[in-house]
């Protein structure tokens, strides 16, 4: 089966970067431009994994996680947080918010794909 | 950028106090409430009517007319309180009535004419011509600051 990835980031650059990596890996890629858009796309796409930025207008990444975890559609989907920090505080916060894992920007293609495979078990 | 800026639209809430029209930028206005009794503060200047309970926080109520030397606003059940935010402070302004929401471009705001009252000059950042004359744009910071100083 093809893995469906939903990426949520307000930066077009990051969205495009993710697209190139995901498509290269043979994943089915969808992106959203902010938190609210992300939650809407989530309901439509029903992805196997969500990758979300934290700092976004409208709804931030924690809001996205919260909306998905409290929602009634597949609320245990793996969610990876994209972040520029790698501090323990961030990790703890992400974990508490319900994130499955995190990816430190700038990410390298191979590790990103392997983390996705690791938490989804797909591919 | 500044030219664009001059054309950019700004919204004001206008209201009447002491039979004059005043306005503040809509981004500063939090809500508009009916008048309800306040608790007087000791040694407060005339324009500080007292404090009121706004959902658990204590906010001071200023009589805008008194603040501009237009005499105390007479008691009237139709009086309203404009709740506004300034630099983290929430305050209420007692006014006679809220008139309208005015949308103007920045270049329509004219400089305050040379007026005698220093208090008015310092607290009014500009005037906007409207159908019924003009409305005075209030510098909320200056209003609060001076009232606070009076108290000290």
């Amino acid at each position: 089966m093809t893995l469906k990835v939903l990426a949520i980031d307000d930066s077009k650059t990051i969205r495009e970067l993710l697209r190139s990596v995901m498509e290269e890996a043979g994943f089915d890629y969808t992106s959203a431009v902010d938190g609210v858009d992300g939650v809407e796309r989530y309901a439509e796409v029903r992805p196997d994994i969500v990758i979300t930025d934290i700092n976004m207008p409208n709804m931030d990444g924690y809001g996205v996680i919260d909306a998905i975890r409290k929602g009634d559609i597949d609320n245990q989907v793996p969610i990876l947080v994209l972040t520029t920090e790698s501090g323990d505080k961030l990790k703890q916060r992400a974990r508490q918010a319900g994130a499955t894992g995190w990816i430190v920007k700038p990410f390298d293609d191979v590790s990103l794909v392997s983390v996705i495979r690791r938490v989804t078990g797909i591919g | 950028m500044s030219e664009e800026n001059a054309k950019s639209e700004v919204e004001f809430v206008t209201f009447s106090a002491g039979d004059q029209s005043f306005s503040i930028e809509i981004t500063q206005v939090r809500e508009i409430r009916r008048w309800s009794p306040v608790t007087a503060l000791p040694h407060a200047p005339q324009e500080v009517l007292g404090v009121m309970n706004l959902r658990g926080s204590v906010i001071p109520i200023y009589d805008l007319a008194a603040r501009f030397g237009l005499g105390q606003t007479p008691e009237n059940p139709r009086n309203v309180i404009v709740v506004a935010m300034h630099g983290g402070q929430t305050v209420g302004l007692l006014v006679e009535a809220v008139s309208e929401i005015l949308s103007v471009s920045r270049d329509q705001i004219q400089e305050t004419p040379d007026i005698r009252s220093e208090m008015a000059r310092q607290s009014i950042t500009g005037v906007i011509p409207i159908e019924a004359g003009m409305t005075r744009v209030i510098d909320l910071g200056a209003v609060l600051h001076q009232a606070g100083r009076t108290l000290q």
Partner: protein
Amino acid sequence: MGNPILDTFFEETEELLESLAEGLESMQGAEFDKETVNSVFRAVHSIKGGAGAFKLNELVSFAHSFETVLDEVRSETLELTPQIMHTLIRSADHLTDLVDAARSGRSMPEDVSAGFLSALQACLGEGKIEAVDAWDNFEFAAVTLDIAPIEEPGAEAEGEAAPAGFSIAFKPHAALYANGHEPALLFAALADLGQMTTTVDLSAVPEWDDLNPTEPYLSWTIALRTDESEIAVQEVFEFVHGLCDLVISPLTDPTPPAKAEPVPEAKAAPAPAPQAAAPTAPAGPSATAEAPKAEAPTMSDRAAAAVAALKKPEKGDDAEAKAPKATLRVDLDRVDRLINAVGELIINQAMIAQRLQDMTSTRDDDLVMHIEDYRLLARDIQEGVMAIRAQPVKSLFQRMSRIVREAADATGKMAELVTSGEGTEVDKTVVERLADPLTHMIRNAVDHGLENREARAASGKPAMGTIKLSASHRSGSVIITVRDDGAGLNRPKILEIAKRKNLVAQDAELSDSEIDQLLFMPGFSTAATVSNLSGRGVGLDVVRNAVTALGGRISISTTPGQGTEFTIMLPLTLAVMDGMVVTVGGQTLVVPITSIIETIRPQPSDLHRIGTDETLLSIRGRMIPVVDVSRALGFPSPEITGSPLLLLVESEGLGECALVVDGVQDQRQVVIKSLESNFGSVPGVSAATVLGDGRIALILDPDAVAGGRSGYHMPNILSNAGRTAYANV
């Protein structure tokens, strides 16, 4: 450039720089939205993120510093002064230049960037900008699991003595599943590291009927034979750290090391106990993320579970027993929201109780009882919640030894700090807000309290002066004292200074305690010689204001030749206090119970007029000044006929004094609401509260009204003008 994504980056950056400039412009206005700062921050943050992807390091590191300053502005820890605003605008310009340079493949002269960086650094003052993370590696920082002792690190490096592997005890919490994890996938990742045997513990699985689908019941013990280091094992669990009980310990295997001899899964167990029905790690990753409990009932061999339970690694048990008390990190905002909600709950309870009392005709004893229960429950909740914010004063006290050292050096004296009661817990805010006043008092104690060496020697004291700092709880209050073993206050000199500075009338005759209170007056400085510690424009009046703002009181006592002691008395909680609701001049006021000694209605013969303007109450053989609260607060003073109702209060400086009130309404717990946040300090009033009817009542500051020593805004009090007389006797 040929890289379409890089083109996208520059296009996007163009837009971001525009919105950055716009945002900064509106931040220059007097009034701006929080969202404006947010969008400014995000613009820089996005530029940094994108630049990182293309290893535009110069851009990244500058954007990082810029972002750090913006973050401080955003979180309001940094005040947006014109100076800082200027730096922000200039930084945006420089960021634009850096982007242009990056686009054309140039780099900016280093000294230019360095100048901008140091300007940003200067904004933060003490705070340092942390270096950007290493950009080149996608790092899995090793999470230190503070659990089992790790095998000799040296041994691992040697290779030879490497452990045969690890025993892993793993018990997922519900949150692990909720966060989208799946144990099977973790096992798959572990299986990549070596040979593994998995034992499931079913002992916690209840009967089918009692099965709660949201509760995880399974735990696993995994024997992993591997050459990999413990770090590698921990990496597998990195994302689930804190979401499960996890004990990783070196495999303590009585059988000879089986490094070369792979143990077939689920066939031979490494431990003596036979394992039945031990599920092995799935060979391939499972495609679904179903919770494992659904399968549990099929593995119904309870006997096996019991055996497995016995097999729990001993080290794991040990570690659990020794595990520190579980703590929970909570966002302070959440706690404060809770505290506010509890405050409202207490007001709500008061409102209901009041209503009930008003309905005397339909009095229902059951209801009264329930309301009383409600009150007690609300109080319990409140105490519990306040305890969350409690913090020992230790950290605060520790900082003070340095202050003593510095002050001693600066004054050429010898001084040591002796502390006690560091474990005393106070509200977090108190700890924070007490730092400055306490620093000042400690400096004062060294600078003004202690004598110089010669004087100490002359009076036979040890050269080393002692500053004692102590904290304790006393009947619902926190007491903090600062005591020096110096010469004590020089009262004639204090009075002389006060007169010279026109703080008191030239002919004023003051009692000893009144003279002591002069120290708290604004504009008073006791420094006979201006040392570099004083003359900072900070006096004890500032200390007093800080303490009053926390709902506390400060008092002073001195023994000539033996030293001076300042006592700060603070409420245990900042949010709530017990108060007496009184009427004064038609206004409802609240008087803190802690300061009230008793209420009395004296005989007219007990009231004595003195001078033209003062009244004294004679009680139990003593004379106490009478203060008309209404007049002191500037409220209209109604004509009172007959004997007035007096509140006997304990006030600083004056000792006891009697406050005239119109009547007492009630005694109750009130939630303290600050007046400062939206208005400012009000003379004679310490704070406000919301009463049962939703109206606001002011909380009286008895010291300020009685002694008028508030130090703030009650001028001339010491020449008696502010201490108004009760006229009608």
